[in-house]
């Protein structure tokens, strides 16, 4: 019963909640935080497709996030380009870069892939940090415009930006949902499970991995471009490895390789961090050990653990139903049922 409620009920309720949220709180700061969470979520979904569903832990995603953000920033501020043209271009730039890096990085596996991407991420960060004449280095890039008008709709107010980001997020979630629940998604999971086995059943692992990698960097770039146009100021720090770890923390707490994990993890961690403002610089004192404890005790995160419990309960119920059938006259089973209900 609970499962039916989950699918049919929870999704529309969540969407509805997201839509009415700004009117319920009426608090600009909360709307700001929520918009930011949505932006992070997009990046986390990108990471989830790659690390969660295909089994490749990329530590370069802050780099791609920053490339998306800086592309948008530079194209709008320095090249004075139309916002949406710059937006599309920055997504293309990030994806092309992702394609080129993926082409080489994906020849490596496991530890080597993690180390390789860690270094790629650091190179991207260093380039942004040191290439003063282009990126303004540590001074950062100021005056990035808010999203341009689409027809009569303008995105100057926090509220309109909130809905823009929400709309994009919903599209991202829909895309990821459809991929995961398709043959393509099954193909990725087969690669995560065993690359050798995937090859023997005729799956071109390289082509599929490259596809996910590019898609994953696309989402990272999208997240970065939105961030730049929302915060309107960016510095090299957004490419720092710490951002990759942040994304990873959201993903792990929520549940790696699950659909709802990125939402649960990001909302939870971002809001807790906001509540613990005084801890801002030290938040890793708490999240570091949580991350470690999670992989030891709850490697599937919140969403994954709940799914696990549900599966177990369903199995038990099934077993009990079979038992009940056999001993339908027995009063003991009826008593048990009452207790559990």
């Amino acid at each position: 019963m609970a499962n039916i409620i989950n699918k049919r009920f929870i999704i529309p309720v969540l969407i509805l909640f997201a839509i009415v949220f700004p009117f319920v709180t009426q608090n600009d700061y909360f709307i700001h935080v929520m918009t930011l969470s949505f932006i992070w979520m997009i990046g986390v979904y990108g990471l989830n497709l790659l690390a969660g569903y295909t089994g490749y832990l990329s530590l370069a995603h802050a780099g791609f996030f920053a490339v998306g953000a800086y592309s948008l920033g530079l194209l709008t501020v320095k090249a004075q380009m139309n916002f949406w043209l710059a937006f599309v271009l920055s997504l293309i730039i990030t994806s092309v870069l992702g394609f080129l890096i993926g082409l080489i990085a994906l020849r490596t596996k496991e530890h080597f892939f993690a180390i390789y991407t860690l270094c790629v991420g650091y190179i991207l960060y260093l380039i942004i940090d040191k290439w003063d004449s282009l990126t303004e280095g540590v001074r950062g890039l100021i005056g990035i415009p808010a999203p341009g008008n689409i027809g009569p709709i303008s995105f100057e107010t926090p509220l309109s930006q909130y809905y823009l980001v929400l709309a994009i997020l919903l599209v991202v979630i829909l895309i990821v949902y459809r991929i995961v629940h398709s043959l393509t998604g099954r193909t990725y999971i087969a690669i995560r499970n065993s690359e050798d086995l995937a090859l023997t059943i005729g799956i071109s692992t390289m082509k599929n991995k490259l596809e996910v990698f590019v898609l994953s960097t696309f989402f990272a770039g999208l997240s970065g471009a939105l961030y730049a146009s929302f915060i309107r100021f960016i510095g090299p720090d957004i490419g720092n490895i710490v951002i990759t770890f942040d994304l990873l923390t959201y993903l792990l707490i929520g549940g790696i390789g699950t659909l709802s994990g990125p939402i649960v993890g990001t909302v939870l961690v971002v809001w807790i961090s906001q509540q613990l403002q005084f801890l801002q610089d030290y938040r890793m004192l708490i999240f570091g050990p949580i991350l470690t404890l999670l992989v030891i005790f709850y490697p599937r995160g919140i969403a994954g653990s709940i799914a696990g419990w549900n599966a177990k309960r369903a199995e038990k119920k099934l077993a009990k139903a079979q038992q009940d059938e056999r001993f339908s006259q027995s009063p003991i089973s009826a008593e048990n049922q009452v207790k559990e209900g």
Partner: protein
Amino acid sequence: MEILVQQLFNGLTIGSVYALVALGLTLVYGILHIPNFAHGALYMMGGYITLMMMVQYGLHYWLAILVSVIVVGLIGVLMERLVFYPLRHAPPIHDKIAAIGILLFLEAFAQYVWGADYQTMPTPYGQVVQLFGLTFTLQRLLIIISAIAVMVLLFLFLKKTYTGASIIAMSQDRDGANLVGINTNRVAMLTFLISGGLAAIASSLAAPINLVFPGMGQLVILKAFVIIILGGMGSIPGAIIGGYILGFSESLGATYISNDYKDIIAFILLVVILSVKPTGLFAKGGH
């Protein structure tokens, strides 16, 4: 010419530090096949503990280093017991994430306890020496000599003692080592102890010519990874040679290419290596 010699000397100094850090990383990788991303945090802790011992408790430099080696070594052992041991059968992605968690925690911890500021470590060996036309501080000479001494001691320990030999045996064949009665648990703990100790020595030696701050381990650990991929994951001589190769290329690159981008040299080196050979240099032939 003089610049070249001076830079080669600097390369020798940095290379010594890199080699020590990479040695700890490669030992752990050899035994447990874990790329310990938290190793840089051990390096950082080593620097702070030595600094604290000297400044707050007034210990002599060498005594402070000794305390630091012991404390950081024990942190390493704790890490093995509490985190990597429970995760020994988990999928490979998990121990990497756990290591990252430890790294984040230790960095935040250092910032909480000692602050985010850059601090300088005093050294009793700050005098400037002139030798063979070279000008350098005594500390730099000390780094080279101490590092080489530590490496020789480590080599003797691994080759000449039973305990050391068991580390080598286990890195070559874990199941085999178990069969011949080596206590693999104890060896794993010991390896982490040594690995942490080496990191503490490296940072304590390097700190007086660099600075002490919470993120001081980040770049060093990344470079150590480059080194052990260069020298072969798990290889001890490879870590030492790789360390010096990187040290030299950086100090020469800083002079003749660009000081700003010298940190990038290591990563470009790595990207090139892995692009050509995805399983790293000196990978054992696959079956």
